[in-house]
């Protein structure tokens, strides 16, 4: 596991969220166990994992909706205890996966109810501001029940922004949204990050996590890894070059074996070679020179790019394979 500590600032005197061996069981069933990490203020933290991995239960536990079975945590600088429940909930907001709107009420009435629950002063102007932020200023009087899934999702996001939370838990915020609406949500998350809001993002969309998150955690009941996406890639996958030639090399061992920065190589017939390298800046020119010296016709040389999806699949599939 890499870097369970935050990449963003902790200048408010501690992490925005910290969990130490946090565990939640429902009877004999373990939802998640021994989960430890820290998230800094202003950080966008991605929480990834397969269905049933315990992501939503973790959000609910940190959001004081469920009581942890063991371990400890702090949220927004407050220890996660029943006594601190109200104060923690004042400082955070949760946007659940399902929008959860009162369908017989209008968008405005839904938000008015939550503005009152958060005891927001000047609720009307705050509601107008959050509706404008999610692009729904002209739909305030629409009944929630007639809105599309995407629009309901946006109302739920507006509701989560009402209280101007320090920490925002977003559970699959772009689920069911079309690409344009998802892009708007991504931009909004970017704006929130610039304003210093800490975002705890659970998502199945690994491209989304890679694009938005400073660090990600991969959970499958236990925490498999925490770190920056690029660090996880480096940790799990060796750097490699993919070389494609027009015709197979007559003696590839002689070509690649002499290069110091190539630690090993393999052949993918008919004429592709994957070279595991220690340093891409040194290896690529040396490989190019060696191929030219061997008289090979080079079609392409490129560094193999591993995505967060590769990291995810490697980590999640590994225990299942064992």
């Amino acid at each position, binding site marked *: 596991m890499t870097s369970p500590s935050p990449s963003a600032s902790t200048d408010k005197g501690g992490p925005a969220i910290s969990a130490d061996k946090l565990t939640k069981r429902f009877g004999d069933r373990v939802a998640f166990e021994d989960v430890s990490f820290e998230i800094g203020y202003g950080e966008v933290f991605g929480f990834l994992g397969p269905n049933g991995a315990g992501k939503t239960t973790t959000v*609910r536990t940190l959001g004081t909706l469920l009581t942890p079975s063991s371990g400890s945590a702090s949220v927004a600088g407050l220890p996660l205890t029943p006594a601190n429940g109200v104060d923690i*909930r004042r400082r955070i907001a949760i946007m659940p996966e399902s929008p959860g709107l009162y369908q*017989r009420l209008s968008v405005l009435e839904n938000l008015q109810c939550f503005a009152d629950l958060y005891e927001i002063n000047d609720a009307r102007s705050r509601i107008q501001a959050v509706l404008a932020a999610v692009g729904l200023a002209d739909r305030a009087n629409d009944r929630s029940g007639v809105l599309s899934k995407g629009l309901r999702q946006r109302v739920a996001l507006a509701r989560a922004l009402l209280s101007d939370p320090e920490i925002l838990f977003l559970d699959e915020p772009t689920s069911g949204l079309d690409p344009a609406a998802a892009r708007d949500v991504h931009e909004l998350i970017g704006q929130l990050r610039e304003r210093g809001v800490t975002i705890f993002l659970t998502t199945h969309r690994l491209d989304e996590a890679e694009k938005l998150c400073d660090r990600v955690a991969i959970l499958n009941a236990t925490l498999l890894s925490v770190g920056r996406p690029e660090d996880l890639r480096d940790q799990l996958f060796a750097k490699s070059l993919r070389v494609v030639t027009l015709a197979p090399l007559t003696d590839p061992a002689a070509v690649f074996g002499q290069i110091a920065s190539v630690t090993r190589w393999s052949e993918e017939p008919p004429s592709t070679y994957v070279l595991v390298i220690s340093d891409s800046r040194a290896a690529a020119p040396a490989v190019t020179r060696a191929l030219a010296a061997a008289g090979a016709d080079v079609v392409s040389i490129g560094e193999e790019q591993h995505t967060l999806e590769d990291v995810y699949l490697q980590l999640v599939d590994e225990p299942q394979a064992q």
Partner: protein
Amino acid sequence: MRRVRAIMLKELREYGRNRSLVAAMALYPLIFTVQPLIAIFVAPSAAAASLAGRHELSFMLGIPILVPAALAAFAVAGERQQETLEPVLATPITREEFLLGKALAVFLPALVIAYVVFALFIAVVELFAKPGIAPALIGTDDVIVQVLFTPLLAAWSIWVGIAVSTRSNDVRVAQQLSVLSSLPLILITIMLSFSIIQPSFELVVFLGALLLVADVIGWRLIAPLFNREKLISGPH
């Protein structure tokens, strides 16, 4: 109090736009008003003497029993059906505020409906019943019983309805169970109105005190059911 008011207003808005709840609020008062009215209007003046010793009006106590039972069943099951429990419980609201907001949203309309229907009933009887019927039917003690027992019965029905609602995912199932749970109380009011039970002053005071104690115990028993974890984890 702002959070209690927020929940209460939200509930009242939802009731007003929910056809099945509006129907329940209209239907139960009709059931408990039409039958006595017909009986009274077909009764000749000579029947006044036989009415004097009876307590026909206690039949109308069915309204504060059944109207809250139907509404309270919506309290948690309605939230669960719309998947709104999690966002609400993630706000700073305490379980007592949540419960109080829900209970008041049922109590107030139930009280208004019960009192207004009772007042209209008395007005109609006073104005249109045959001579001698109204004074025989409407005794001061009946009015006092109606005024005092209406909130006590409504509160008990609310606790039963909410308890059922916390254990249900489906509003209609919750309503049926809640109304079913109220039937023993309905039976008592019917027995009173048909003079199967002869209410003495002592019995009325005893029943009133019993209901008051039951209402207080009801609050104590229901409040723990509004534990966030129990509500979120659902009835299973």
